[in-house]
């Protein structure tokens, strides 16, 4: 069964963001990694790239298909999780511990458009 970690904000396209001060760690939910199956490649942006809420910033590839990564917030990429370059399967092992990008938020009010864990869990069941 998929896990829904408390304290994170979730998007309808199955990304999460863990907010720490003015920064946010963005990854894919445990539900998403289950649905994808074995992740074999993560296409990530570069540090200093701008991301925009609701727009694609990369992709996660399973054996069969590529799924776009949609940013839940707007901001500037300050770090990418380089471990995923060589070990993309970390997303299958623990999607919440293995964030994909760290972003400096440009508009924290965008977080209000996202779901909490309980609402997201209900969303996934539907």
């Amino acid at each position, binding site marked *: 069964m998929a896990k829904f970690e408390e304290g994170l904000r979730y998007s309808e396209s199955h990304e999460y963001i863990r907010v720490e001060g003015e920064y946010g760690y963005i990854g894919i939910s445990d539900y998403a990694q289950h649905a994808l*199956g*074995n992740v*074999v*490649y993560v*296409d990530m942006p570069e540090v200093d790239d701008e991301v925009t809420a609701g727009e694609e910033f990369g*992709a996660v*590839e*399973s*054996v*069969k298909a*590529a799924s776009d990564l949609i940013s839940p917030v707007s901001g500037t990429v300050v770090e990418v999780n380089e471990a995923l*370059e060589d070990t*993309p399967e970390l997303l299958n092992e623990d999607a919440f511990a293995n964030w994909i990008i760290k972003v400096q938020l440009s508009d924290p009010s965008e977080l209000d458009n996202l779901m909490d864990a309980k609402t997201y869990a209900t969303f996934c069941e539907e």
Partner: protein
Amino acid sequence: MEKKTCLYDRHVALGALMSPFGGFIMPIQYSNITDEHNAVRQHCGVFDVSHMGEVRITGPDAEKYVQHIFTNDVAGAPVGQIYYGMMLYPNGGTVDDLLVYKMGENDFFLVINAANIDKDVAWMKEHTTGFDIKLDHQSDFYGQLAVQGPEAEKVVEEVLGIPCSELKFYTAKVVGDIIISRTGYTGEDGFEIYGSHEFTQKSWDKLIESGRCKPCGLGCRDTLRFEVGLPLYGDELSADISPVMAGLSMFCKLDKEEFIGKEALVEQKANGVAQKLVGIELADKAIPRHGYAVLNTEGEVVGEVTTGYHCLSVDKSVCMALVKTEFAKLDTPLAVQIRKKVFEGKVVKKKFYDKHYHK
């Protein structure tokens, strides 16, 4: 509305991810593609391939007719011999690729792709004029299982009780009212078994209950066939892609008296083709997929990916692609546009993993 095979309820009960393929609702995976892929490479897997189509050609002109519509040469073949080849349009484009089983004198069993069944049967019927044959479309009667992997022979003999060790690669025999052949679409040793729906259901149950054979979906069927360079109609062959372009000339016997499309192939062999199918290996792990653009070192589009994967058996991102012939030589630097980025690579042989047939 997609059709269901006779094993549909069993797939659902096993929790398979079901998806439309070739007009049927088919299992894509039961557990995950990687595990199923590895089961076939290392042990044994069973596929429901009942979606494949079957046509029986009999009558005094059966051999002459098969020779007319089929690129390979079945003349004087021993009973039980199987041939791979194509049916072509007069311009050399491919109607379908298929297996032809010689079941007896002037008695042939043709196995065609699910997605092409209606088109193929119509094509065959259109070309019967002047031939004294009976064309019997049997797709609705036959179920089909593919038991594949290095342990397939033992599993078929011990679990299904069908003796098959004496069958040579690409030969078939009739056992009761079933047909079994040493064929497959995985690059491993294995068998394909055609029987009634009832036989297919009972055999499937025995294989799954034995625990010696993993249920495998079409997801890993595609990764397995791709790695060993086997074409899929719709990707590497089509009405626009001739067997010469796809590098499959060895299955087109141009020394045969005639077959539909022969003149076009003779012309293509003599004058060359504008595009050829190649393998491309990328330096990075990003995955080239069907339809992505292939670029030369100047960044110009020179082709298109037909199938691509992160190749499971060799841990590399590779694809087959149809490219302009001038870029088809081994080691030519070519890149693939994957979303916004361009990934460098080079032309390699379009076989990424060696076949392990039992010959």
